[in-house]
């Protein structure tokens, strides 16, 4: 089993969610994060003092998926999250030794 982690633009969350539903993804976990990268942040001014804010609001998705579904899911995320503008984000995949569904104790494939 794999864990797919994606960093996307916040306003893309809905589209990505729909795309994943389309791929039959049954669940995911999402959180608000701040990104630092090529995409520039913004400037703030308080009573004449200027500050450069490097961080940009992003959303982080975590999706547990069976080996077989990974590529399909990753493609779906990439397609839905793409705006072709700097800052679209990253997707990365890590191995998962095992997964459990708390409610039932089911493991791995059955946990999803």
């Amino acid at each position, binding site marked *: 089993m794999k864990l797919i982690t994606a960093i996307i633009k916040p306003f893309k969350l809905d589209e990505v969610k729909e795309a994943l539903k389309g791929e039959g993804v049954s669940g995911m976990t999402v959180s608000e994060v*701040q990104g630092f990268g090529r995409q520039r942040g913004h*400037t703030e*001014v*308080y009573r004449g003092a200027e500050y450069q804010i*490097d*961080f940009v609001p992003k959303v982080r998705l975590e999706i547990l998926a069976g080996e077989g579904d990974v590529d399909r899911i990753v493609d779906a995320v990439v397609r839905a999250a793409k705006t072709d503008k700097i800052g679209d984000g990253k997707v990365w995949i890590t191995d998962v030794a095992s997964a459990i569904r708390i409610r039932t104790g089911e493991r791995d494939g059955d946990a999803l």
Partner: protein
Amino acid sequence: MEIDTGNTAWVLVSAALVLFMTPGLALFYGGMVRAKNVLGMLMQNFFCMGLISVLWALVGFSLAFGDGGDFIGSFEFFGLKDLATTEALPGYVDDLALTIPPMAFFAFQMMFAVITPALFTGATADRLKFGGFVVFLGLWSLLVYSPVAHWVFSPKGWLFQKGALDFAGGAVIHINAGVAALVLVLIVGKRRGWPKEPMHPHSLPLTLLGTGILWFGWFGFNAGSALGANGLAAQALVNTNLAAAAAMLSWLLVEKIRDGKATTLGGASGAVAGLVAITPCAGFVGGVAPIIIGAIAGIVCYLAIQLKYKFGYDDSLDVVGVHLVGGIVGSVLLGFFSDTSVNSFGFDSVFFGGSSELLVNQLIAIGSVIVFSGVVTFVLAKIVDLVIGLRVTEDQEAEGLDTALHAETAYALGGRIG
């Protein structure tokens, strides 16, 4: 006529209360927009306190209450000239003679001028270009607000003389601002993503706080319009409270029936709808009339709001549904509930032994304000849109007005990152 200290105290307090309504409105609206646009909204409202106050002193008041013709005042009070020393304001003589200093009347009216254009900022939320807004704001106040105020409030105005009633500004303030709101949203267009993308209020407690301030300040708005501390002011204050209360109840009832749940935003919206509707009536009706007027306003405004989805205009915070429609509801119902036993300066209405004359005059007033405000607003907005632009860029809208236009973020609650 003699200056009465009690009447003066009440009008000064009322002026302060009405001024306080603008920050209240800013919070009421600010809580309803998304977190990335709240400062943009607060800024537009607070800016009205800045720009309009100054314009009002320079020329706005003079255009509204100076001794001009039926349609517009004069420049006699330009820059407050002679105001401190004038004996009586044009037309305020005989039974209309004021028992307060003209300067107190000026102060009270200044606060009305400030809040009126602030009302329409709710309709164009999240997408107005600040520079364009600033210019439009000044033009609108002088070329739309002052004339309409002259028509209705000044004893020299044609609608005043025709016998249309508007105790505290149902037509001058709410219908006027509501029409402007409608025209503006048609010109600047919808927010990107509306109505598909949800755009929930970012802080309903802020909106409820704003509602509390508005309700509180509205006592000055309506009861202060009695221009004295007397039984009429007390009646207006009671009517104001009862209409807000009844409208809250009726709105919540409709929600409960139609949506299954009564919401806090609904309660707040209903209260405001009731306050709007009672504004023209506050000093002309009595008994349970304010309860009936409020209850009707709560239902009608709720339903009116749903029209934007049908016709597809993005009246973002429902200025049209609440202020235009609510103002019309109140102005029309006054033709049925006005009662001279409450106020001898009023006229008897359909239900109170009067003819339909008052009702007709009310309709004339409503119609003429709608047409005038609609046309002039359209022209001014078009011009400003062409010359300066009224709408932010796509990227600015996506980023949010706070950082894009004002280089600020509203909240840093974690206060740890960035």
